[in-house]
C-alpha cells in the first residue's frame, strides 16, 4: 500500500516500498502487469495537513516575487522619469531653436532689405 505523505523522507521510503525497482524477472523480460500493481489510498486523519515543501516553495517564491515587484516599480518610475526628461529636452530644444531663429533673422533680413534701401 502506498501512503501519500508530504514528508520527504517518509514519502521516498513509501515510494521505495511500493516500487522496489526492476526485479531480475522483469529485466529478463517478464511482462506480467499484475506484478506492478499498486493501490493508492488517502490517509485518514493524518498529522500533516499542509505540505512543508509547498510552504517552503511558496515562501521562497513570494520572497523573490516581492523583490521583483519592487524592481518593477523602480522600472516604471524610471519610465515616467524618462518621459519627463523627454519633455524637458523638447522644451530646451524648442527654446534653442527659437533663439537660433531669432539670431539668424537679422542676418538673413539684411540682404533682402539692402536692394530696397538702394532703390
Amino acid at each position, binding site marked *: 500500500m502506498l501512503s501519500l505523505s508530504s514528508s520527504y523522507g517518509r514519502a521516498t521510503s513509501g515510494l521505495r516500498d511500493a516500487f522496489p525497482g526492476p526485479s531480475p524477472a522483469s529485466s529478463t523480460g517478464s511482462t506480467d502487469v499484475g506484478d506492478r500493481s499498486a493501490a493508492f489510498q488517502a490517509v485518514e486523519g493524518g498529522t500533516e495537513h499542509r505540505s512543508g515543501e509547498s*510552504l*517552503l516553495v511558496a515562501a*521562497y517564491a*513570494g520572497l523573490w516575487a516581492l*523583490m521583483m515587484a*519592487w524592481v518593477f516599480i523602480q522600472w516604471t518610475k524610471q519610465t515616467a522619469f524618462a518621459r519627463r526628461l523627454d519633455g524637458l529636452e523638447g*522644451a530646451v530644444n*524648442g*527654446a534653442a531653436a527659437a533663439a537660433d531663429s531669432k539670431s539668424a533673422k537679422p542676418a538673413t533680413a539684411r540682404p533682402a532689405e539692402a536692394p530696397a534701401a538702394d532703390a
Partner: protein
Amino acid sequence: MSPPPTARASTAGRATPYFIALVAVSTLLVFASLDVIFLRAPVERTMGIVQKIFYFHVPSAVCMYVGAAACFGGSVAYLVEPTELRDAIGRAGAELAVLFGVIVLGTGSLWASKAWGTYWTWDPRLTTMLLSVLIYVAYLVLRAFAGDGEGERKFAAALGVIGAANLPIIHFSVQKWAGQHPTVITNKGGGLGHSDMKLALALSFAAMFSVVLAFLWVRVRGQLLENRFADLEEDALDLGLGEGLNE
C-alpha cells in the same frame, strides 16, 4: 545651484565599478545560499523541511532593520541639516523597511501555518513587527501624497525617527513578554545543530545583506536624480520653457 554636468558624470562614473562589484557579489552569494539551503543543509528533525524558511525569514528581518536604520539615520541627519542626500536615504530606507517587513511577515506566516496551525496570531513579536511596517507605510504615504516641501520632509523625517523607536521593542518583545515566537539565535540555548545549517544561515545573511545594500544604493541614486531633475524642471519653467513639460 546644481553642479555642472561634467561633475555629475564623473561622480556617477566613479561609483559604477563598485556598484557592479556589489551586484556581482550579491548574485554569487544568492546562488551559493540557494545551493546550501536547498541541497546541502539537512532537514530539521521535528519541524521538517518547512524549517528552511528560517534561512531567509531571519535575514529578511535583518534587511528590514537595515532599511529602518537607514531611514532613522537619514531622518536624524536631515533634521540636523537638511540635504537632498539625507532625505533620499531616509525615503529609500523606509521603502526597503516596508518591502522586507512584508517579506518577513509573509514568510513567517507560511512557517506558522505549519508550526502553529495558523497563519497569524497576535503574538508580541508579530504584532510589533506589523506595527513597525505600518509606520513605514505611513511614512511612504505621507511622502507620496503630502507634497515635497521642506515642512513635509521634516514631518516625514520626524516620523522616520519615531518609527525606529519600535525596532528594539520588536527585538526584545520575545524576551520581555510571553509569546509563541521562537528564539534561535540567542545566548540562552537554541542554535543550529549542524555545520551546514550554520553555513546556510551565514550565506543567506551575506546574500540578503548585499542585496539590500544594492537596493538601497539604486533607490538613493534614483531619488537624487529625481530631485535634481525636479529642480531643473522648475528652472526651465522660470526661464519660460513651460511648453512640453509635465506631459
